[in-house]
């Protein structure tokens, strides 16, 4: 009993995600898990994952959020549209320019936040207005559309199936391959730890974890095989998630993020340049906003003045649902991804059920509050105990 509780407590959001998925699968009579809908879910929510990962780094530094990401998405999108569609610039030149502009925006905001120490909330609120204003003046209030095929294919296409079968065998093979690699890494890590005499997790817990994760990977792979195969966007997301997981768990700058959020004074007295840590978090956030912008214009095949509205809220919500602490210092990339998928499933499930958008917002708001309330209350409990 105690153990089950422990596992439940550690993986609350994962369990909640499974429950919500199950609930909507039943409510939508299985439509939620249709292969076409899985593909949809991925392309619809890709930008949330990218933004949420960036937001996590900001939140880790001490509960700082970035309100400007939606406007940056719109602005970089508008820039991409102007360069690629209006000026017929090569995609391969336009993309680095857009990413560089994202970084410049990050440097601007990061400077005020980290070195002048204006609260992030205020700087990014200003950014939210400024970049939206720039967007409107770039676009002149009009929407740019019809991007060239080579740009769209970069984000919207699927990896071609080398086997040319009726089902996309490649995605199943890749899925299986990922499972095998994952299992080998887990087992070899465990053996290595054992050899060195470190603590290892319970065998049963590990087997359970491996089984659950492998089943989920294979299920997604098979369902993709029944549709068009592996979307390019999934590859991009995979890279982002892997890179940032590595960054936050294995590198020194990643470690500094947690140290600063956990206790900024202690971090500073340990010789950590906390200004730089904060600065880089915001530069990175703007960079990832530019990445999300490129994904979004491709998905809609347009750069609109209102693009990206409320995206910051999706990203912030994913972080908190995914277990990041509102005070900083706690949170993982994996958790945030689960938070983003959770929001995605909730959105998608309600849309399929035909819940109207007012109601959708209400439900999402309450879920966010519930997730954070649960976190705060359970922590208070454990502190008293």
């Amino acid at each position, binding site marked *: 009993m105690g153990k089950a509780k422990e596992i439940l407590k550690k993986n609350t959001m994962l369990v909640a995600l499974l429950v919500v998925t199950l609930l909507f699968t039943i409510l939508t009579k299985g439509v939620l898990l249709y292969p076409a809908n899985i593909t949809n879910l991925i392309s619809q929510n890709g930008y949330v994952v990218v933004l949420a990962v960036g937001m996590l780094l900001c939140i880790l530094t001490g509960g700082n959020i970035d309100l400007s990401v939606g406007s940056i998405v719109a602005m970089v999108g508008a820039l991409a549209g102007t360069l690629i569609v209006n000026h017929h610039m090569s995609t391969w030149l336009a993309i680095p320019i857009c990413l560089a502009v994202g970084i410049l925006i990050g440097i601007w905001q990061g400077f005020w936040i980290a070195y002048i120490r204006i609260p992030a909330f205020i700087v990014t609120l200003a950014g939210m207005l400024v970049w939206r204003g720039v967007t409107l003046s770039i676009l002149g209030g009009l929407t740019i559309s019809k991007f060239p095929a080579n740009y769209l294919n970069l984000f919207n296409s699927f990896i071609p199936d080398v086997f040319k079968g009726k089902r996309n065998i490649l995605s199943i093979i890749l899925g299986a391959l990922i499972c095998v690699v994952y299992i080998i890494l887990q087992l070899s890590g465990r053996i290595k730890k054992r050899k*060195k005499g470190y603590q290892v997790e319970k065998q049963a817990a590990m087997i359970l974890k491996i089984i659950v994760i492998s089943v989920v990977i294979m299920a997604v792979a098979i369902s993709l095989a029944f549709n068009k195969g592996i979307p390019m966007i999934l590859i991009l997301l995979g890279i982002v998630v892997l890179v940032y997981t590595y960054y936050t768990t294995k590198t020194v700058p990643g470690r500094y993020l947690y140290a600063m959020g956990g206790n900024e004074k*202690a971090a500073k007295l340990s*010789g950590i340049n906390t200004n730089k840590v904060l600065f880089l978090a915001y530069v990175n956030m703007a960079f990832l906003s530019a990445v999300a912008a490129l994904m979004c214009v491709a998905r809609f095949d347009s750069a609109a003045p209102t693009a990206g509205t409320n995206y910051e809220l999706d990203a912030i919500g994913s972080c908190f649902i995914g277990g990041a602490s509102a005070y900083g210092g706690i949170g993982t990339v994996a958790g945030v991804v689960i938070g983003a998928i959770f929001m995605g499933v909730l959105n998608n499930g309600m849309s399929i059920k035909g819940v109207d958008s007012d109601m959708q917002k209400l439900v999402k708001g309450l879920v966010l509050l519930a997730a954070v309330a649960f976190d705060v209350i359970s922590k208070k409990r454990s502190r008293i105990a």
Partner: protein
Amino acid sequence: MAELMLEMKNITKRFPGVIALNNVNLQVEEGKIHALVGENGAGKSTLMNVLSGIYPYGSYEGEILFRGEECKFNVINDSEEKGIAIIHQELALIPYLSIGENMFLGNERGVKYKINWEETYQKANELLNTVGLLESSKTLIKDISIGKQQLVEIAKALSKNVKLLILDEPTASLNEADSRKLLDLLLQFKKEGLTSIIISHKLNEISYVADKITIIRDGSTIETLDKVTDECTEERIIKGMVGRTMTDRFPKREAAAIGEISLEIKKWTVYHPLHGGRKIVDDVSLYVRKGEVVGIAGLMGAGRTELALSVFGKNYGIDITGTVLIDGKEVRLNNARQAINRKLVYITEDRKGDGLVLTNPIRVNTTLAKMEKVSSYGVIDKDIEMIAANDYVDKLRTKCTSIEQDVGNLSGGNQQKVLVSKWMFADPEIMILDEPTRGIDVGAKYEIYCIINQLVSEGKSILLISSELPELIGMCDRIYIMNEGKMVGEVMREDATQEIIMGQILKSSKGA
């Protein structure tokens, strides 16, 4: 004999691991000024917190009788209702509100949903008059000096119809003229029948105002002196404050060869970061040799921590002047990183606030100040990190379930060991330890002392800041005495007694 106003009988207050007050008795007579003296941590403030209800009834043992009635205060409001008001050393005024607003905060004039501002400012002005303040009650708190703020606190207490006024080191941050004014005010109120308890380190002030003096040491009352019947000499008070027997609480150190000067600080002056004109460290010079433990004695607020922090990469204060020499060469340390690279480290007195990342495990905290030792090209090698953390857990005998345990879940003594590990891991040659044994039990203290001895036997230099005189005398080769930002004395181990050190501190306070 005058009537007893307050009687605290056999008060015992326990905190996890320590007894802060042990059967303390205090009797305060109606219409008198009663002084409470004792070293830092003797239990004076704890006693006053018990009296005012900050520690609620039931969290301590013993009885409080106020005008013959037994009191069971649960919150501060309960004691205020009886007419007991406490003014803390750290003033509790809100800088961006006016004097009047502050004075009636929580006790607003008028009705609940409509504050009567005319009455507020009118009453506030009257009260300001009684304490001799000429400011308008609409002045913002941030615009008046600390001395005047102190008077506002007293006026605030008066507004609550106070019968017993408690002042915790009221003159600690005041200059002589302001102090005198405040003390005269107390004497005047005494004539009007107000009873007060004053906590102070300044013996001249105490002999100026107090009718009775109670000395507290190590959580027990030592004696109560009456100005009329007893001989209240400074020697007697000092002896009462520090007169404890030294036992074998300190490990013997092998007489190590003391080497050359490793750290030298010359003419170091630091100003307060917010109150620009205030010197916190004033023209301080000192040196430490290799293999030497050098202590800095002083009362709270003497500027010792500020001295250490400002030397350690300018982490405190503004307009810092003076020079730091390491191994005879002048160095500029503009941030903590530069100090660490010069092998100078500072181990904070506030392990939870400034020292450790409580939400992170022991492993992470151990390596935080010197990540380059466990990483290459910015990538952490977890194996090396775990070996290092385990190594220090073994070496310092830190009690924990594993190095993955969050530091927040450790006991104070073990947290302190993790903090020391963290800084030992940074390979220092010079370590500044600020109150390294604060709030930890006797056993853990002994272990910390052993670690200090081990470090100096390896030729490292230790600068030990401590408010516990026995600790300094037991551990140090040499002790500097600091007071009010200045170096006021230096004693060698052979000559050091608690009486001498305390005497020097108190003597230097007189001039201020």
